[in-house]
């Protein structure tokens, strides 16, 4: 077991509380209530002003439960040196978190080969690297809101849609050489050699365009708008760039290809009971989210960090935005979600598991069998539970059972995935951890939290239709996962852990992996947690602002 001084969470625990992290006692009721928090004081000041100006009561921390009877502890964003207040990690208070989701939602990938075949075979047009470049220039005018076909047309202020553009992905290196650098997402430059080779091979000679719709459009409309917006501007740009008739039937092939045959959305449509179109968080499979996150190309030799960054991104997207807002609303979910990306507690457990499996099995070298699942998940679970017992400050930090259950099971699942290189074995390890935790500590999460963990083992290895899926393709809409917090981001992390251990460049879709390597994205997907910290410090510059069309303050 790692020595006390080596614990990754020790710095956070010492900063959060005045006592030694091993002390069992403290003092309460004398911190000055909510006034101990700078952020709450700021909130109150604003709320008083709003209430006075409008004449309707607003936020008032003196209402309801007495806040701040204990230390309102700060949180260290894991993987960074930044300490923030919990409030700064609610996505409404954090522009970086909003932008992470904006950047995923507004991304659509559309294959160009069908359109090129229509141009060449049906319309007799020549398609060359030069014409593709010209098309891309046209598209980069049209996509943010420029008119290309009609001569009397309203347009969109570019200052509102500055973040909007389109680029090209291809595995055809000859063609890539001839594509204007401004339009190319260059796989060879952006990825380590071994990963670039995998991606180029997987993508092959096909050509894809990656479109980033304006963030502001996502705010006003919805995720399903994105591929429609993309398809409209693609069709218009083909008409313009290749000088074809706007009304001829062949144009419908561009639309069909862009909206259906060749489109790759980041999120699938959801059924009526959850009623969302494409590109909404509930439809983003775990493997796709893992592919959006780019830690693997920056830290290829650190599979723990690779998995942890995916978990952080996933907890924010799935727990805070999807379950915590789309599906419920309010403030409670942030407290659950942040446990996996603050104070380096999960980091400590995951690195412990990584060390354990590297010493005993080697990375991705163990068979994905039950004996390995039992050995690794049990050891990591026991280690995690013991840290909460040894360090009361850690227990108080994760004061809800669901937080602890998510953290311990995530570390266990990732560790099994590290050992086996197999996400299905990893998720099976997650469920063993939950059962061990429940009997060991005699408590787990809230009623609904535990539910899927009681029955999860039975479907963890199933891949038959209606019974299961490979974990990479499961998502928030998977039947057993649809209702509760503290699981989804962690499952995405288990997917990533398996592939990171294997040295895979991507988990599910090489195009998604390459699309999010693009340095022109507003959010930096290599280290989501660092970006969240920037957002918490109010240093993150988002897109989608309306300052230029509203009165100056």
């Amino acid at each position, binding site marked *: 077991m790692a020595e006390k001084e080596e614990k990754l969470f020790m710095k956070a625990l010492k900063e959060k509380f005045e006592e030694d992290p091993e002390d069992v006692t*403290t*003092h309460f009721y004398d911190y000055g209530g909510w006034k101990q928090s700078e952020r709450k004081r700021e909130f109150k000041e604003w709320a008083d002003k709003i209430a006075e100006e409008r004449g309707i009561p607003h936020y008032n921390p003196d209402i309801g*439960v007495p806040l701040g009877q*204990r230390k309102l502890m700060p949180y260290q964003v894991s993987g960074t040196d930044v300490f923030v207040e919990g409030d700064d990690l609610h996505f409404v208070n954090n522009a970086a978190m909003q932008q992470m989701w904006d950047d995923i939602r507004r991304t659509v990938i559309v294959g160009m080969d069908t359109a090129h075949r229509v141009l060449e075979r049906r319309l007799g047009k020549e398609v060359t690297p030069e014409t593709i470049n010209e098309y891309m220039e046209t598209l980069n005018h049209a996509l943010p809101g420029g008119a290309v076909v009609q001569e009397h047309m309203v347009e969109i202020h570019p200052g509102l849609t500055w973040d909007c553009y389109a680029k090209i992905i291809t595995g055809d290196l000859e063609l890539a050489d001839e594509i204007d650098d401004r339009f190319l997402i260059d796989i060879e430059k952006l990825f380590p050699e071994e990963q670039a080779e995998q991606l180029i091979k997987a993508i092959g000679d096909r050509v894809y365009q990656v479109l980033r719709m304006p963030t502001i459009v996502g705010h006003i409309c919805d995720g399903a708008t994105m591929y429609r917006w993309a398809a409209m501007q693609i069709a218009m740009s083909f008409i313009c760039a290749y000088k074809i008739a706007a009304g001829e039937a062949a144009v419908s092939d561009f639309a069909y290809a862009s909206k259906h045959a060749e489109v790759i959305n980041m999120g699938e449509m959801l059924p009526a009971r959850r009623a969302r179109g494409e590109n909404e968080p509930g439809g983003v499979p775990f493997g796709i989210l893992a592919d959006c996150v780019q830690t693997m190309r920056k830290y290829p030799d650190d599979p723990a960090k690779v998995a942890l960054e995916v978990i952080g991104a996933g907890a924010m997207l799935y727990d805070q935005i999807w379950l915590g807002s789309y599906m419920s609303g309010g403030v409670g979910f942030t407290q659950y979600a942040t446990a996996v990306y603050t104070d380096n507690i999960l980091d400590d457990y995951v690195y412990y598991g990584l060390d354990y499996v590297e010493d005993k099995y080697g990375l991705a070298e163990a068979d994905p069998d039950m004996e390995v699942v039992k050995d690794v998940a049990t050891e990591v679970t026991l280690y995690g539970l013991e840290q909460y*017992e040894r360090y009361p400050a850690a227990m108080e930090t994760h004061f809800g059972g*669901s937080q602890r259950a998510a953290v311990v099971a995530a570390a266990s699942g990732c560790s099994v995935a590290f050992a086996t290189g197999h996400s299905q074995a990893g998720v099976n390890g997650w469920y063993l951890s939950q059962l061990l935790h429940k009997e060991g500590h005699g408590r787990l999460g809230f009623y609904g939290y*535990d539910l899927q963990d009681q029955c999860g083992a*039975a479907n*963890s*290895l199933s891949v038959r239709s209606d019974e299961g899926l490979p974990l990479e393709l499961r998502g928030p809409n998977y039947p057993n996962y649809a209702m509760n917090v503290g699981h989804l981001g962690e499952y995405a992390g288990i997917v990533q852990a398996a592939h990171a251990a294997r040295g895979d460049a991507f988990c599910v879709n090489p195009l998604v992996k390459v699309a999010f390597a693009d340095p022109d994205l507003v959010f930096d997907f290599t280290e989501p947690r660092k970006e969240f910290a920037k957002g918490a410090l109010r240093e993150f510059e988002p897109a989608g602002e309306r300052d230029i069309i509203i009165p100056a303050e």
Partner: protein
Amino acid sequence: MAENVRDEMAEKAQFYPGETKIAENRRKYMDPTQELKRLREIPDEDIVRLLGHREPGEEYPSVHPPLEEMEEPECPIRELVEPTEGAKAGDRIRYIQFTDSVYFAPIHPYIRARMYMWRYRGVDTGTLSGRQIIEVRERDLEKISKELLETEIFDPARTGVRGATVHGHSLRLDENGLMFDALRRYRLNEETGEVEYVKDQVGVELDEPIPVGKPADEDELKERTTIYRIDGVPYREDEELIQVVQRIHELRTLAGYRPDEAEGK
């Protein structure tokens, strides 16, 4: 009746696996044949005040007429199941909810749930990490609450009666050894050394404090507790329990994936 059914069972109930003192305590609290040790007396009226559902001496409010006055349809289940006293009278269903500290509280959520299901009839119980509720017909609830509060499974410092704003189970203890309670429903009376409730379980102030006894010392709590801890009996040391959990997991996995392989395991 439940006792007869158990007697006729082909297998003897084992209640819980494990080879440690903790496992033994878990079995003891679940086993309805083992009488819980009574450690304190709390007057019935005080229990009613602490619950806060009705005033002491007030009639039980009812949600339906007594069963014997109702013309119930013929039903084999109704014939089979003897109603509790509260159900017979048509009482409301009310609750008591506990928070159990991780620091050697005598009993804690899932063990509570299983204990309730073994020992009591007509109960609906819900288990979370920071609170554990039991919902019962009101007069039955008062009887059950008396046992839950007066016996060895309650400790005044490490067990809290909390209907809302429950957090405290995982927090460090206050300097005087009491579990944190944001609503400060109880306090340590320095003169008597006893813990006394000054608010009912949802935090409504009481006219008079309700003493619930002196906190047990650490050694005694460690003897009574159902909690594995690294500074008590570590979970890691109970190999039998861990093996049983692993077996359950393996069988559940196989049952969903390759049921044929689960046969005979």
